[in-house]
C-alpha cells in the first residue's frame, strides 16, 4: 500500500498526469456525447471540466501541477486561432458576397454581447476588474485573455468567463433559435452558425460544426471575424472612456 501511495505522489506531480487525465476524460466525454445523440446538455467541454475539477479536488492535486501537463493541449489554442484562416479562405466567395451583412452582424452582435455584459455586471454590483474581465467573454479564450490584460481585467478570469460563455451558447442556441423561428434551410443554418460563432466563439463553433456543416463553416468565419474586430476595437474603445 505505501508503495502505491509513493507511486501516486510521483505520478500526480509529473506533467504526464495532467495531459493524460485531460485527454482520457475528454475522449470519454466525447464518446458519451456521441452516444446521447449530441444532446446540447451533454456538452463534452462542460462535463470534462466538471469531471477534471472534481478529480483534482478529490485527489488534492493543485491546478498549477495539473496545468504543467495540460499546457501542452492549451498551447494548441494559438495555432488553432491561426488555423481559422482556413475556414475564412474556404468561404471567401460567400464572404465577398455577404460581407456587409456579416460585418454588420459581427460588429453589432459583438457589441451587444460585451455591452450587455458590462451593463449587467455593473448593475449587479460586481467588482470593477471582474466587470472588465466580462467584456471580451464572447471572443475566443486565448484572445479574450489578451484583451482583458489590455483593458485592465484579470486574464485568467476572462478565460474562464469565455469558456462558460461558450458552453452557455452551445447549450442554449438551439432552443433560442427555435423560439425566434430561424429556419433550418441553408440561409437559416448560415445565420445560426454565424451567430453561435460571434456570441459563443470556439465552443459554439464546435457545436455548430457537429450539427450542420454550413453552420460550422459560418461559425468559424464569425469566430475569426470577431477575433479581429474585438482585438482591434475593444482596447481602442476602452482607451476612449
Amino acid at each position: 500500500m505505501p508503495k502505491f501511495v509513493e507511486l501516486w505522489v510521483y505520478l500526480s506531480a509529473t506533467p504526464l498526469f495532467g495531459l493524460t487525465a485531460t485527454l482520457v476524460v475528454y475522449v470519454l466525454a466525447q464518446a458519451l456525447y456521441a452516444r446521447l445523440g449530441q444532446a446540447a446538455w451533454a456538452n463534452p467541454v462542460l462535463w470534462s471540466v466538471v469531471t477534471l475539477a472534481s478529480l483534482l479536488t478529490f485527489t488534492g492535486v493543485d491546478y498549477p501541477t495539473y496545468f504543467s501537463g495540460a499546457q501542452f493541449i492549451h498551447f494548441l489554442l494559438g495555432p488553432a486561432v491561426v488555423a481559422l484562416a482556413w475556414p475564412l479562405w474556404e468561404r471567401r466567395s460567400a464572404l465577398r458576397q455577404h460581407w456587409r451583412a456579416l460585418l454588420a452582424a459581427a460588429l453589432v452582435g459583438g457589441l451587444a454581447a460585451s455591452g450587455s455584459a458590462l451593463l449587467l455586471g455593473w448593475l449587479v454590483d460586481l467588482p470593477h476588474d471582474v466587470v472588465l474581465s466580462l467584456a471580451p467573454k464572447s471572443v475566443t479564450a486565448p484572445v479574450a485573455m489578451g484583451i482583458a490584460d489590455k483593458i485592465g481585467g484579470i486574464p485568467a478570469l476572462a478565460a474562464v468567463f469565455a469558456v462558460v460563455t461558450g458552453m452557455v451558447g452551445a447549450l442554449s442556441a438551439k432552443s433560442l433559435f427555435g423560439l425566434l423561428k430561424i429556419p433550418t434551410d441553408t440561409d437559416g443554418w448560415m445565420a445560426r452558425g454565424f451567430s453561435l460563432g460571434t456570441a459563443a466563439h470556439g465552443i459554439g463553433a464546435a457545436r455548430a460544426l457537429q450539427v450542420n456543416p454550413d453552420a460550422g463553416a459560418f461559425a468559424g468565419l464569425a469566430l475569426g471575424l470577431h477575433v479581429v474586430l474585438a482585438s482591434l476595437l475593444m482596447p481602442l474603445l476602452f482607451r476612449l472612456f
Partner: protein
Amino acid sequence: MIGLRGLAWLLAMQSLGELLSRGLGLPFPGPVVGMLLLLLALRLPLVREPVAACANFLLSHLSLLFVPVGVGVMTHLGLLGQYGARMLAVIVLSTWTGLVVTVLVLRAFKGKRDA
C-alpha cells in the same frame, strides 16, 4: 507528414505574427496577426494543401483545447462563492443577447435582399 508540414506553417505564421505584434506594438494578439498572414499566404498552393489537412484536424477538436483553461475555474472558487450566481446570470443573459442580436441582424439583411 502533410499534417506535420501544415503544423509547421501554422507555427511559423504564429511566430511571425508574435514578432510583428510585439515589435510594432500592434493591438492584435500574435495568433490573430498570424491568422491574417496565413490568409494572405493561402493563395500559394504550397501552403494551402498542408494547412488544410492540419487546420481541419485542429479545428475539429477545438473544444478539447478549452478544457485546461476551463478547469481553471477551480482556482477562482472564492470569487465564485461570493459572486457566482450573479456572474452566471450576467454571462447567460449577455450571451443570449449576443446570439439573438447577431441572428436578427443577419435575418434583417436577408429580408432586405429578398424584398
